[in-house]
């Protein structure tokens, strides 16, 4: 089995779904933790956020590579830039969120429940960022046909 199938224009379409799913489940665990407040859920949310952020970084880098390998396509140019920008915002948000959440929930001795509720609300911003970035990415394929064989 080839590492990269012949139909794939690069790694980006192969790995992009990992950060989407991991980060959505990470947000779900953060929300769950705010409601249930269990240690195992807290740790699960850390792991999912870390894995999701790292896979988002891989997706971002491979996405940059994919964008640079596309030939001149004026119709999609602005959309490519926009998708890249929102991917960067999403990546930045989750790296910062993961770091702060880990540090605060690990170090906090009091009001942990309240802090988790605050982080739960903040995590919803991440959910929006994922959705918007994914929508822009979907447009590139389904509206502009990028990466699709003619």
């Amino acid at each position: 089995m080839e590492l990269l199938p012949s139909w794939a224009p690069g790694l980006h379409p192969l790995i992009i779904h990992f950060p989407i799913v991991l980060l959505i489940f990470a947000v779900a665990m953060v929300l769950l933790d705010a409601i249930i407040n269990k240690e195992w859920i807290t740790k699960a949310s850390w792991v999912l956020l870390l894995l999701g952020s790292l896979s988002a970084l891989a997706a971002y880098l491979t996405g940059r590579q994919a964008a640079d390998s596309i030939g001149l396509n004026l119709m999609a140019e602005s959309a490519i830039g926009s998708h890249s920008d929102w991917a960067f915002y999403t990546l930045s948000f989750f790296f910062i969120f993961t770091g702060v959440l880990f540090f605060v929930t690990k170090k906090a001795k009091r009001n942990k429940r309240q802090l988790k509720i605050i982080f739960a609300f903040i995590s919803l911003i991440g959910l929006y960022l994922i959705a918007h970035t994914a929508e822009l990415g979907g447009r590139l394929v389904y509206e502009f046909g990028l990466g699709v064989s003619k």
Partner: protein
Amino acid sequence: MKTINQLIGASLIFLALVFSISCNQSNKTEHEAEHEHSESEEHEHMDSEDHDHAEGEMDHDHDHEKMDSMGDGMSWKPEGEAKNFMQNDFHFIFGGLDEMTISSLNEEGDEVLSVNPDGNVSAFVFHKSEGNIGITASVKVVDYNGELKLIHHSKNADNYEFVSLSEKKMELGRVVDGVKKVFDSKVVDWEPKKWITLSVTAAGSHFKGYLNDKMITHGHGDELEKGYVGIMLNGTGTVLIKEIDITPLEAEH
């Protein structure tokens, strides 16, 4: 038991959230589809009115026959006497017609503009200002020693953005108040004395330079105000220009 109830409750809340986002997106898509449908009906109606009006304008204005309008875009090809169309279609933001020898040639059935600059910097631009833009120029250099630049967002000789091509290198950058900033620079291997397409795109904060439709340079910077689009030459030799296509790019957010 309490934990299970909490788990169920939390799962239901999460599912409701995902479902509401999904419904919002599908409602938005349906609404956009209806909006596009009614817009396209309006557009067809307007087109038939505009066409009658435009025919009258075209009869009146011969100078712009060579500039075919592609919606908001433009495709320029040289036609007629070189001095006439250089004076009608462009203005200089650096140097002038005195600093170059120009002529119209027939090259393989196509009319092309031949420019022989004298080594001083000269830049000629179209009259219309553009913002986010894609520019493609079909050019050929013959014994040309110097830089060929596609410039955009230009206000004057000290303020413009560019992609430049020299014998071995492509650069992408901007000049602000006379200070040059290079976003990206790559060594390129290309053949002079052959027709090439040199392109640049400026979409928001993303700038790219292409050679024969292949991306070579990619840089980022703040979006500048609208400015003129054209060609800058800094060298000696012959530059042939067959076509310049300009496509305004829609801003995306």
